[in-house]
C-alpha cells in the first residue's frame, strides 16, 4: 500500500470563510482552490452556471487558467482530454443531452487514463427542452471507467470536487471522475458554504504529476495508437484494475480530508441516516435526501423505524459493504431519479444495481423499486411516506416486490 501523498498536518492553517453560494459556484470555487490549469466550457442548463462563475473568477483575476469556450460539448471534452495528457489539471462539465453529445470523447477518456474532473448538472435527456433533474445523463457512462459520485449540498459539492482531484490524479488511478449535482436543487440554490483556505487545499492536494505518461518532447511517447483485437482486452483489464484500486484511494482521500479540513463525511461511499434501529430503509442519490430526511423524522415521531441510505459513490460501487448494511433490514426501497426501460423488474438503474449487489449476500430482504422525481418533479414528503408504506408491505410479504411510479398523474 502506497503512503498517502498529502503533507503532514500543519500547525495553524487559516480558517474557513463562509460564503452564500450555489452548488455550481461551489464547484467553481473548488476549481480556483485546486488551481486548475485548463477549463473548457459550452453552455447548457444547469451546468452553464459553473461557466459563469468560472468566467467571473478568471476576469476578476482570482483564477489563472486557460478558459476556452469550445464550439460544442464534444470539442469541450476533447480539449481537456489532450490538455490533461500534457500535464494540465483540467475541469469540464455538461448536462443532459450536452453530456450525451460529448459521448465519443467521454468513452475514450478512461482508457487513455486521463484524470479529468467533470461536473454533471443532472438534467433530463429532453425532449423537448426539459431541463429538470434526472440522473440518466451521468449514469450513461457507468460502464466505461468513469468514477461517479453524487452530492446533496453545496458544501459537499465543493469538498467532493477537491477529493475528486486527489483521487483521479493519484498515479494508482488516473481515471476521470464526474461529480453529479442535481439541476435546480443544487446547481441553482445558494447556501452558506465554508470555503477552506488555499493553505489547507495545498496541504491536501498534491501537484498533478503525470510522470512517465506525460506527453512531452522530453518524454517521447505516443498516446493511443491504433489497436485491434490483439490489444483491447488487455487495455480494458488495465482500466478495470485501476477502477478496482479506486475504493482504497477514495478512503485515503476522505481520511486525509477529515484530518486537514476538520469536516467528516463518515463512510465515503454511502451515508446512513437513522439506520441504527431501523426496520426498513430507503436508498437514493442526490438532493432527494432532503425530503426523505424530513419524512423520516415525521414517521419516527409516529413510531415507525425508518432509515435512509444515501449512495454517494456509484462508481466504484461499494457492493459488499452496501449489501452487508442493507441485509440488516426487513425490506429496502430504492428511489431512482432515473429510469431503465425494459430492465429487470422494470426498475431504475440504482435499484437494478442494488439487487445485483444483494444477490450473493447471506441476508436478502425484499427490494421495492420506485421511479420518482423525473424531469425535476418535486419529491414531496407525502411521496416519501407513500413509498415507505410500500416498503413496509413488502417487509410483511403482502406485496410482490417490483417497481412503482410515484407522483405520477394517473
Amino acid at each position, binding site marked *: 500500500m502506497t503512503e498517502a501523498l498529502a503533507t503532514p498536518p500543519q500547525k495553524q492553517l487559516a480558517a474557513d470563510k463562509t460564503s452564500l453560494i*450555489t452548488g455550481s459556484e461551489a464547484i467553481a470555487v473548488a476549481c480556483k482552490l485546486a488551481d486548475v490549469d485548463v477549463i473548457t466550457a459550452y453552455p447548457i442548463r444547469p451546468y452553464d452556471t459553473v461557466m459563469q462563475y468560472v468566467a467571473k473568477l478568471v476576469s476578476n483575476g482570482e483564477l489563472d487558467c486557460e478558459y476556452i469556450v469550445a464550439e460544442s460539448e464534444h470539442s469541450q471534452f476533447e480539449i481537456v482530454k489532450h490538455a490533461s495528457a500534457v500535464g494540465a489539471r483540467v475541469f469540464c462539465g455538461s448536462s443532459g443531452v450536452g453530456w450525451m453529445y460529448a459521448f465519443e470523447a467521454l468513452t475514450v477518456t478512461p482508457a487513455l487514463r486521463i484524470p479529468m474532473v467533470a461536473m454533471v448538472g443532472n438534467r433530463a435527456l429532453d425532449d423537448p427542452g426539459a431541463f429538470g433533474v434526472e440522473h440518466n445523463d451521468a449514469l450513461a457512462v457507468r460502464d466505461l471507467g468513469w468514477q461517479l459520485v453524487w452530492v446533496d449540498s453545496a458544501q459537499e459539492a465543493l469538498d467532493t470536487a477537491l477529493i475528486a482531484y486527489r483521487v483521479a490524479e493519484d498515479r494508482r488511478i488516473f481515471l476521470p471522475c464526474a461529480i453529479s449535482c442535481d439541476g*435546480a436543487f443544487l446547481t441553482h*440554490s445558494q447556501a452558506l458554504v465554508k470555503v477552506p483556505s488555499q493553505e489547507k487545499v495545498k496541504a491536501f492536494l498534491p501537484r498533478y504529476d503525470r510522470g512517465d505518461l506525460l506527453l512531452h518532447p522530453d518524454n517521447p511517447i505516443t498516446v493511443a495508437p491504433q489497436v485491434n483485437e490483439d490489444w483491447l482486452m488487455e487495455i480494458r483489464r488495465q482500466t478495470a484494475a485501476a477502477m478496482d484500486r479506486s475504493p482504497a484511494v477514495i478512503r485515503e482521500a476522505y481520511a486525509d480530508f477529515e484530518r486537514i479540513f476538520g469536516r467528516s463525511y463518515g463512510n465515503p461511499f454511502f451515508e446512513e441516516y437513522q439506520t441504527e434501529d431501523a426496520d426498513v430503509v430507503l436508498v437514493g442519490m442526490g438532493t432527494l435526501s432532503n*425530503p426523505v430526511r424530513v419524512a423520516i423524522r415525521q414517521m419516527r415521531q409516529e413510531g415507525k423505524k425508518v432509515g435512509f441510505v444515501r449512495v454517494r459513490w456509484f462508481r466504484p460501487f461499494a457492493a459488499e459493504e452496501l449489501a452487508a448494511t442493507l441485509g440488516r433490514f426487513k425490506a429496502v426501497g430504492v428511489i431512482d431519479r432515473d429510469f431503465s426501460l425494459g430492465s429487470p423488474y422494470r426498475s431504475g438503474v440504482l435499484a437494478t444495481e442494488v439487487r445485483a449487489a444483494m444477490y450473493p449476500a447471506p441476508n436478502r430482504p425484499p427490494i421495492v423499486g420506485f421511479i420518482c422525481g423525473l424531469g*425535476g418533479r418535486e419529491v414531496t414528503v407525502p411521496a416519501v411516506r407513500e413509498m415507505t408504506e410500500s416498503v413496509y408491505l413488502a417487509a410483511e410479504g403482502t406485496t410482490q416486490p417490483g417497481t412503482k411510479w410515484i407522483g405520477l*398523474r394517473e
Partner: protein
Amino acid sequence: MGRLFAVEIVYRGIFQKNLARNISRAIVLAAHHEGKPGISFGRYGDSPERNGIPAKSFAIVATDDVTLEEGMAKYEPKEVDITIVVDDTLCKGVESWAWYGLQPINRLTKPGGTLIVTSHENSETLISMAHRKETPYQLAIVKGTPSFSGLWVYKDDHSDVRILGTMAKVLPELFSLASVQQVIRAEWNDELKATSALRAYERATTVTVQPTQGNPEKPFEFQMPKWTEMREGIAIPAIPRGHQMKDPNTGEMGGYQPERNPTFKKFTTRTMRPVVDFDTCIKCTLCWLQCPDSVFDVTPDGLYDANMEACCGCGVCEAVCPVSNCITMVNETQFADNDSQWRMWKEDKEGYKGWLKEKIANRPERSHGFRFRGQYAEQVPDMLKIAREG
C-alpha cells in the same frame, strides 16, 4: 421545532433578475448575521428567462438547521411571510412559463403576511389590481419607479435596500435594521445605501387588505391530463384556425381573429399596453405584420385591434406605426380589464376620444432594459431623491 421564514420576490424576467437576486441574497445574509441559517434560490422553471415574463426568487430562513431542512424539503414554499413585488403591474397576477394558469400575486402570502410593492400608485389602486384573498393581509408600498435594468447591467437606484429596510420594519423577527445595514455595507460598501434602508425603515407603514377588497375574478386555470390521456409521441393538438369578427353596430361579419392558445396567455408579461387612435389609423398593416405575438385582430372595417389577452406589451407596434400618436404605449396600471378598444370605439366614438386622451397622459415611467449609455445616470437621481425625501 424552530420558526421557518419564507420570502418570495416576484419580478420581471431579465429586467429585474439581478434586483431580485440581490434582495434574496441580502435577506439570507442579514438573517445569517443573527445566527439564522438560510438559502436563496430562483425558481428554476422560470428560467431561461424572457424579457418581462413573471419570475420568482425565494429566500428561506430558519431559526435552526433542522427547521431549515423542513423548508428546503419543498421545491418552493407553499406559503410565504412576505411577497415582494418589484413591479406594481405584477399585482394583476402572474403567469410564468414554469406552470399553467394565472396565479394571484398574493396566492402564497400567509394570512396576515405582507405584500411589499414598489410603486407610485396608492394603496386603493394596488388593492383593486390584486385578486381577492380569503384572509386579510398587509400591504406596504415602497414609493418609487419599478427598477428595470438588464441581464448584464444593474441600475443601482436603491430599490433593493429600500425594500430590505421596509422588511426589517414589517418582520423584525427575520432580521433587524442593524443587521441588514451591516450586510449592505459589506456587500456594496456604500453608506448612502445603508442610509436609504434606514429611511425606508422609518417611513414604512402598512394597510390591512380585507377579504372583501380586490379583484373578484377567478383566475383562469388549466387541468393537466393523466399519462393515459396524453397523446403518444409528445404530440399536442394545434391551435384551431381563426374566424371572422362581428361588427357590434351592423352585425356585419368580416376581418379575421386568430384562435389563440387557451392555456398560455402571456398577458401578465405586460407592463405597458398599446392604445390605438382608430380615427387616425391609415390601415397600413405594419402593426399587424410586425407584432411578434400576432396580437392584432383584423376588424370587419379593416382596422387593427390589439387583443389584450395576447399582448406582451413589447412596444414594437408603437415603434413601427408611421402615424404620429396613432399607437401609444400606456402604463398597464391604468387599466382594469382586457376589453377590446375597437369595440369601445365603435360603440361611442366621442367617449373613446376622451378615454384615449386620459390614458395617453399616463405614459410608462419605466423602460424595458438598457437602451443607451448614460440612461441610468439620468434615471437614478430621481429615485435617490425619492429615497431621500419620500
